[in-house]
């Protein structure tokens, strides 16, 4: 496990924890690498929310369970975090939030936030007072911090901004001679990376993939993508409409693709469940669509604001009847962008539904990635100009019949949810049924020609192979890179369809361990059924939290 300092800010919903986090993040990133991951309760006010800031001298994006510094700003916050402390952890708080009998057992440092905020002007200055204090604790550059305040509050009146600067200084002065449990070296001449959360990355990928139509119904944790694209709608010519329900959303997206747009529906498991009939519609009409499925723990409402990888089976088997589909599962910010971009090209090329499978953890976590740029390749259009004798479901050229759109050419584009003839008219001819079914399902092997390759990390000459898809990437990467060198991690970016070539990775391993953020090992089942490979062990977690690096280390140690 990499050397990191884990700082957790914990308070009530609505207290402005996010403001404090963003101020800190901006200043920390100038001198360190930073990974942040929030967790929150499904409520607008009260309860307990927290955000974890992992500070390091090298890039890091694995969640930590252990807390080095706990900064408490509200009631109930300490109790929920207590089990994550160790004997070296610092706890900084007003006394009232820490039970008296606990204080002596802790490395407790009293910080009179309310009093100081009052001194600075009012409780409104609490965040900047706290910012000052933590900045001093971490030894952050004061000038950089002042700049962060000025840019964050640039829309406020000048005297208010200055009062915030003074509030920062007040907090800063109060922090004296505190030894941090872990010292992290500052990074000299740190290159400017790209900092974003998964929601932004998916949205940017969609823009780079040519999305120009979005219809969705808000549902955590998928709503970040809807909001981001809405905010960029005018600038990028994206028509964003909030649908009356998820059923409408996907049908609208399919209509938009039919008419020549590139549509996206962003949703979570419950919404996706409502979209399943339309998914099947995309399948039989061969109208492309892209769905962002942001997983959260179910069943039903489950844990609305938490994380899980429990919907692979839903993505894989959702929808009635048999039809091909593509599932992509980005594990880090850059892939969230790149694979989301690719999704639109794949959908257009193969005329199938493409599902981008993410989860709350990656969408809300913010990490720094190496600079990257999109290329234009995904904007390649597969739409043709139709001739008078155009047949939408032409069987003469293999599984992919060239796709026309209404208004472009002389032919008519007839799309039907019933089994149809080459022209697109309803038929009950059994031979046509077989031909159309074979044509649709025949796409699966073609899709594999554009398989989004899996990536092997760690030792090429491994004994143990850890297999993960999507957002277990961060912990598994760190685990194999920091471990004893006998392990490797196979990161699966496209869980479906799977190519036979992946088997070689499994055959080489003495032991195969599949790691999944769910209770039943859905990916392991898929690997077994699709590739016929053997799985020796599974590491599963399903309490609503992501895997921590400590858990992976402990579980893998138990297996050896």
């Amino acid at each position, binding site marked *: 496990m990499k050397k990191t300092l884990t700082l957790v800010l914990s308070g009530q919903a609505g207290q402005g924890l996010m403001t404090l986090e963003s101020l800190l993040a901006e200043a920390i990133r100038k001198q360190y690498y930073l990974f942040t991951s929030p967790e929150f309760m499904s409520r607008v006010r009260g309860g307990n929310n927290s955000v974890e800031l992992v500070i390091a001298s090298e890039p890091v994006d694995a969640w930590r369970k252990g807390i080095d510094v706990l900064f408490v700003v509200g009631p109930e916050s300490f109790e929920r975090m207590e089990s994550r402390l160790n004997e070296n952890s610092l706890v900084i708080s007003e006394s009232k939030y820490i039970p008296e009998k606990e204080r002596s057992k802790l490395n407790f440092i009293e910080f009179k936030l309310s009093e100081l905020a009052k001194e600075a002007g009012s409780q409104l200055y609490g965040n900047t007072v706290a910012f000052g204090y933590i900045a001093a604790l971490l030894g952050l550059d004061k000038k950089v911090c002042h700049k962060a305040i000025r840019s964050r509050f640039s829309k406020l009146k000048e005297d208010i901004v200055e009062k915030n600067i003074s509030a920062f200084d007040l907090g800063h002065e109060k922090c004296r001679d505190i030894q941090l449990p872990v010292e992290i070296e500052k990074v000299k001449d740190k290159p400017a990376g790209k900092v974003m959360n998964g929601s932004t990355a998916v949205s940017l990928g969609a823009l780079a993939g040519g999305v*120009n139509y979005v219809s969705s119904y808000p549902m955590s944790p998928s709503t970040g993508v809807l909001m981001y694209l809405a905010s960029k709608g*005018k600038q*990028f010519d994206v028509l964003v409409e909030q649908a009356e329900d998820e059923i409408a959303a996907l049908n609208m997206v399919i209509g938009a693709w039919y008419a020549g747009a590139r549509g996206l529906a962003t949703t979570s498991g419950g919404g996706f469940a409502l979209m399943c009939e339309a998914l099947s519609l995309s399948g039989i009409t061969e109208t492309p669509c892209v769905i962002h499925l942001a997983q959260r723990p179910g069943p039903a409402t489950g844990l609305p604001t938490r994380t899980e990888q429990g919907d692979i089976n839903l993505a894989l088997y959702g929808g009635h009847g048999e039809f091909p589909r593509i599932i992509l599962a980005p594990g880090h910010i850059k892939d969230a962008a790149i694979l989301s971009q690719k999704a639109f090209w794949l959908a257009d090329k193969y005329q199938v539904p493409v599902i981008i499978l993410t989860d709350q953890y990656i969408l809300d976590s913010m990490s720094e990635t190496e600079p990257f740029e*999109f290329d234009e390749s995904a904007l390649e259009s597969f739409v043709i100009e139709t001739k008078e004798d155009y047949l939408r479901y032409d069987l003469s050229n293999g599984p992919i019949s060239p796709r026309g759109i*209404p208004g472009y050419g002389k032919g008519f584009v007839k799309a039907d949810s019933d089994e149809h003839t080459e022209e697109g008219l309803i038929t009950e001819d059994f031979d046509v049924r077989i031909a159309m079914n074979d044509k649709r399902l025949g796409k699966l092997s073609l899709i594999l020609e554009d398989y989004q390759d899996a990536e092997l990390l760690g030792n090429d000459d491994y004994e143990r192979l850890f297999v993960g898809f999507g957002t277990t990437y961060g912990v598994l990467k760190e685990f194999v890179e920091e471990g004893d060198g006998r392990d490797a991690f196979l990161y699966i970016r496209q869980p479906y369809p799977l190519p036979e070539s992946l088997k070689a990775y499994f055959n080489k391993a003495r032991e195969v361990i599949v790691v999944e953020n769910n209770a039943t090992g859905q990916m392991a089942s898929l690997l077994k059924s699709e590739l016929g490979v053997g799985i020796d062990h599974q590491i599963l977690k399903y309490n609503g939290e992501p895997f921590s690096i400590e858990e992976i280390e402990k579980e893998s140690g138990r297996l050896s």
Partner: protein
Amino acid sequence: MNNFEFNREIDIAWCPGCGNFGIRKALIKALQDLGIEPEKTVLTSGIGQAAKMPQYIDSHFFNGLHGRGLPLAVSIKSVNPELTVIAEGGDGDMYGEGGNHFIHNIRRNPDITHLVHNNMIYGLTKGQGSPTSIQGLKTTVQVDGVINEPFNPLAVALSLGATFVARSFSGDMEHLTETIKAAIMHKGYALVDIFQPCVSFNKVNNFQWYRNNTYKLGEDHDKADLSAAISLSLKTDEYPLGILYQVDDKPSFEERTPVYTDDKTPVIHRKREIALVNSII
């Protein structure tokens, strides 16, 4: 001119004597009279006997899922407003299964025409009660008679701010053709509820029943009078036929949606600049 007609024999799956034949004739005539190009027309529909209409009209169509003709229509129109878009289906499809889309697309006011064949019964599934079935109608499921209040599409549309609300009858070709023409020409969402006998499954609301229980609105009806339209929509002793309400003062969904406020170019014709995306990373 034979636009929208096939240049070959087609097999039509409706029962002999079905009101759908009259509606098909009127729709084709309306489109031809208005000189609308089939290459720029899209019909969307859901499932049901009425929803098969696009199959029998030679143009673009998307025959989607039960109840989902409207979501297809609104998105097709919004990404390419240069198309003429007509959503068509029956009372079960549009008012039952697709009820939520009916409500919310009236609120959106997309520039589409919505034709609903209303025969007060389910046909394709063989004779169950529909949202518009009259109380007491005995069916294969409502064996002792329908007990629920019939859905009133015209009153619902008016209450939600629809700017074109009409009712016609499949048995009156001229009235129906003219009503459909007015609906297509109307800017914004236009509803035409079309009374139609079901010769196979509704023995009560038959051709004669519609003749006896409807009347045509006269020239003196003020189409811009919302209160009058609402009163007319609530009449159940004798159902008025004609355009109950029409005003032209409301911008359509496509006009109001932010992406079109400064630029009328259909979004499908706009080019994405990858450099602009890279500039915001």
